[in-house]
């Protein structure tokens, strides 16, 4: 990854906490948009979550949607303007809890959009409550004793869940917890956007991401948490790829 800022990102410091994965994910998406030369075609959706201020950082058309409803808005935008490149950027609460119905049905309709899914196993913006992706035993402000599968159910694996839907084209889970992972993540994001450009249908990239603040871990330990515990619960890899055959 280059260290000169992509022109797709505005020249503005982000509000993300030190060690947060959102900033890295932003850079990856921005670089891909720049490399594919699609900035002037992009219409992005901002989620409700820590990335709500996406519109302050990305240099493209953006609509900030209701919590979880980006896929519905993105569906409409893409159907009305198929020549544009539409992506959603959503956290795990947004995508896998309140917006789960929209997520599944947008995927199942095979909407030709790109979904960037930031899985940080917690609700960041609201101060560290349990997410649908919170790990078993992981503490949060609403699971103070640690998530208990018998009480809260086990974490939801979105790529595995969506892989059963015939409408879906491409699903990959990546991470931003090491340099190697970032390179792999960028390849996946690029493929997800290229699929859309080529009209191939619904692509989702799940990015395992750090939230040092609400995990109450140092940035370094947060990276370790992703590499050890999250990758175990959420194995990396391609879960579906209809473009490879």
């Amino acid at each position, binding site marked *: 990854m280059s260290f000169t800022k992509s022109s797709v990102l505005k020249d503005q410091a982000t509000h993300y906490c030190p060690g947060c994965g959102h900033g890295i994910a932003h850079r990856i998406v921005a670089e891909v948009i720049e490399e594919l030369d699609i900035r002037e075609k992009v219409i992005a959706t901002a989620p409700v979550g820590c990335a709500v201020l996406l519109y302050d950082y990305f240099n*493209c058309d953006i609509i900030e*949607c209701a919590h979880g409803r980006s896929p519905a808005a993105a569906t409409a935008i893409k159907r009305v303007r198929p020549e544009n490149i539409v992506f959603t950027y959503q956290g795990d609460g947004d995508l896998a809890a309140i917006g789960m119905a929209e997520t599944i049905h947008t995927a199942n309709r095979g909407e030709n959009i790109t979904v960037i899914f930031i899985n940080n196993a917690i609700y960041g913006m609201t101060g560290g409550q349990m997410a649908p992706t919170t790990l078993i035993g992981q503490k949060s402000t609403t699971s103070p004793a640690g998530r208990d599968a018998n009480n809260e159910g086990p974490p939801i694996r979105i790529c595995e869940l969506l892989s059963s839907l015939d409408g879906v084209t491409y699903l990959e889970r990546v991470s931003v917890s090491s340099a190697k992972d970032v390179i792999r993540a960028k390849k996946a994001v690029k493929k997800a956007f290229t699929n859309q450009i080529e009209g191939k249908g619904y692509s989702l990239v799940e990015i395992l991401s750090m939230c040092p603040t609400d995990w109450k871990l140092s940035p370094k330990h947060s990276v370790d948490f992703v590499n050890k515990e999250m990758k175990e619960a959420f194995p990396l890899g391609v879960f579906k790829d209809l473009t490879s055959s």
Partner: protein
Amino acid sequence: MAEKILLKGNEVMVEAALAAGCRFFAGYPITPQNEVPEYMSYRMPESGGVFIQAESEIAAINMMFGASAAGVRCMTSSSSPGISLKQEGISYIAAGELPCVIANIQRGGPGLGNIRAAQGDYFQAVKGGGHGDYRLIVIAPGTCQEMYDLTMKAFDYADLYRNPVLILGDGILGQMAEPVERNEYVPLCEMPEKDYVLDGCKGREPRVIKTLKLESNQALIDHNIHLQAKYAKIEEELCLLEEYRTDDAEVVVTAYGIAGRIAKGAVNMARDKGLKVGLLRPMTLWPFPEAAFERLADKVRKFLVVEMSCGQYIEDVRLATKCSKVVEFLGMGGGWYPTPENILEKIEAVY
């Protein structure tokens, strides 16, 4: 003369929407408005637009948010419980000042209620329903012809004021078939340029549509001041109503939508009996036709409100007349509707 069509009110609404250039519809089935998505599902593609059966009313209203931002005339419809589900999205659309048309073909409530016609969603329609200080333009047709003509206007009002417009109908209006003149769509005036549309930032600065206002403590206050000024302008400019035989009326019956139409029959029957009775039937419920009520309050003895709910519209009548005259009431919720005879009986009792 314009071509005549014989269709159900729900279908008439679709034809009018398409004539007005609506090119995006998303909705979820619910009785008594099912004809809208069913009819749209083939008429919209024939017109070159997008039809989506959404996974829920929530998805449908958020599709409006996206479609409107993408610049197309768009519409969703539902009935009472489904409209309740849409409220968060409606608040976002109002806050984002995105034009769109929403139809509520009301049924009996509260709860799952029943599928008979009702007018129990008046408060929800005109007082908010969703969170925050916003207003919907609320239109209440009373006949299939009005359903046609006012639906076309609804799209113009939405674009003109950059505001969601609610068509408040009911199960009778949606289900009954009447011949309708397919009047040509003529825009009310020149429509403002859509300089907010997201279509990719080619050759211009990026555009953002957002409802979060965190820039300063003042930012959201300023946005509210801006919206209130817009609402005040709409209140000044927009008022549709039917006034019937009120010139010498001593008692004015007032009702909207299908109840207003039934009341008109009762007014004629009362006149035949020599009673000086008139009708005031608002076709815009917000803005509320306050001036007409004020004027009539000066000269009549009484008002009689007729509504298919336990008493919601009556509150605005009392406000508009400043309680200066007696306001009698005939109404019930849960799917009750009056016959002209019911209303005549009430007129005779209170006259």
